[in-house]
């Protein structure tokens, strides 16, 4: 009887030990994954900042005006050649 209990307990202990090892292993793996993803998020933040900067640089009014005037041959609007439509009026 005593012997049986010992065997069961020993088996339980070994099982516990193994699950602990496994849990530890899993946690490390997940942690590394977390680290990797955090790193990725930082990189994405940087990329986003870079893209915002690019957008601002490319969307500069100076550049838009330059392109509108030279490449697209556009001219500024004047009230003299503008037709205003008033909502509700006939």
């Amino acid at each position: 009887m005593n012997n049986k209990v010992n065997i069961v307990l020993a088996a339980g202990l070994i099982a516990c030990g193994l699950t602990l090892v496994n849990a530890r292993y899993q946690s490390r793996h997940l942690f590394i994954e977390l680290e990797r993803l955090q790193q990725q998020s930082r990189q994405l933040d940087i990329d986003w900042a870079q893209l915002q900067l690019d957008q601002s640089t490319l969307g500069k009014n100076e550049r838009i005006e330059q392109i509108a005037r030279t490449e697209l041959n556009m001219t500024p609007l004047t009230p003299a050649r503008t037709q205003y439509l008033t909502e509700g009026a006939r």
Partner: protein
Amino acid sequence: MKRDKPFTSGRAATGRVAASKGMAFSKSPVLAVRLPDWRSRVVLFVLFAAFAALGLRALWLQGMSTGFLQKQGKSRYERTLELPATRGKIMDRNGQVLASSLPVKAVWAIPEDVLASPPEKLRELARLLEMPESELRKKLDSDRTFVYLKRQVEMDVIAKIEKLKISGLDTRKEYKRFYPQGEVMTHMVGFTNVEDVGQEGMELAQQKSLVGVPGSRRVIKDRLGRIVEDLGFSREPHDGKDLTLSVDSKLQYIAFTSIKNAVEKFNAKAGAAVVLDVHTGEVLALANYPTYNPNDRTKLTGEQLRNRVITDTYEPGSIIKPVTVALGLETKRITPNTTFDVSPGYIMITGKRIRDTHDYGVRTVGGIIQKSSNVGVVKISQLIPPQEMWEMYTKLGFGQAPRFGFPGPAAGRVRPWKSWRPIEYANMAFGHGLSVSLLQMARAYMIFARNGDMIPLSFVKVNEEPVGQQIISPKTAGQVRTMLESVVSPEGTASRAQVAGYRVGGKTGTAQKLVNGHYSQTSYVGSFVGIAPMSKPRFIIAVMVDDPKGAVHTGGGVAAPTFADLAANALRAHNIPPDSSVTDIIIPENPLEEGL
């Protein structure tokens, strides 16, 4: 002794037998020699002493120096990671980025090691760092063990440098600030130095909230350098807060282009313009010319750096006349229809003569403003005690450094009323003998553009409309607005400020510059402060052209057309419907110019 018993017991007879000599082991004669007892005791004692020493040592390590040892152990597998914090972005009111930090690297070297590498590698390095090889060698010719070769090198260049594999060369992470809008926005935004500390403009004003707090954390790294366990933060990093300015990129560009064109066209020394939102008190645009590129500040001069809107003061000239008139109207000493005889075109004050350009005869108060008659305004001012005038100036903020969170605002100069001599008071009525900044002047016009109240100015975006402080009555404000509109007509001094399709109003100002303490006869400052559109004021636009050397130098000649250009584009850009059907502007052949 018990120990000796085995050798002498009866078991010896049946004991083992030494095979070679046919003799029992216990009978061996060697064993017959008896060792002295003290020897075994010495051995025992030595062993005991050795164990005791080990025990003490163990006790010492475990008990006394445990902290030190644990620290040493941890330092073998624990690492402290520095977590840098990013400086906050600066954005305009529509979310367009005006300043942003990106990670770059500083290249540093241990000179001795780097100099030992092959010369062609050094040549390549110099090329990548964009400096002559001689300069690189000069930097390396140093006794120190740490020399920065170049700071703020962009990441793609770093990748190429790392491929060279030069020993003794290393990099350090840092941030570089980029300003995509460049010279257009720089007087508003400012810039930071290489250490990421704000030096000018909003970068300086908001340094505390923009800057981040770097943090650090403890981790355990494995053999491959991967982080396997987090031991928590020693200090949590905090990124700097983003800042949304009141400025509108589009309006800023319009203001900048207008002022740049004006400076070039009128051959002026400099120019400045500011656009305020009438409803919120936000500064929508603030432009200066000459300017500089904040991304490349190697050839920066003080002249370029100067923010003429805020830190420069000048004598405003006729721009101040509506203030004098408003006070007269407010205190019921005059009405818009009160007439003054301003002939013969000059007035004597304690022996000094104050002149107009023409003899305007008998004029109403409105006519005096429209023609910018000095004599008329002096006559109005004579009805007002100096103390009341001084109080008005103070309420408008003249003579006090404004507090709106921008570095280095000029206070301007208004002397205490008790020391005003009659001639000085007369001069002040038309804007001489006191000095203001362009921004103070634009702000003072708030009382006309709004219904007589004044609101604080803001350089950051305002989400709710501020509550104003009433200075003059709405009725007076309306009366002055009508006069200001009449100035911008073919008969007024600002005929060139007219904007097709819109009703605008404003006042011109021309002042002689003070050169070495005397009024110069050749250097002037032409300025204009206007309100647009008149039917429902939206913008206050102030323009200043410093020292124009062309054919015209008056406010009506140089600042008014700049205002018209700026206002027309600003109104269009903001989709403000026209409030006038007049689309053909009449500018008289000889527009009326104001006097000094």
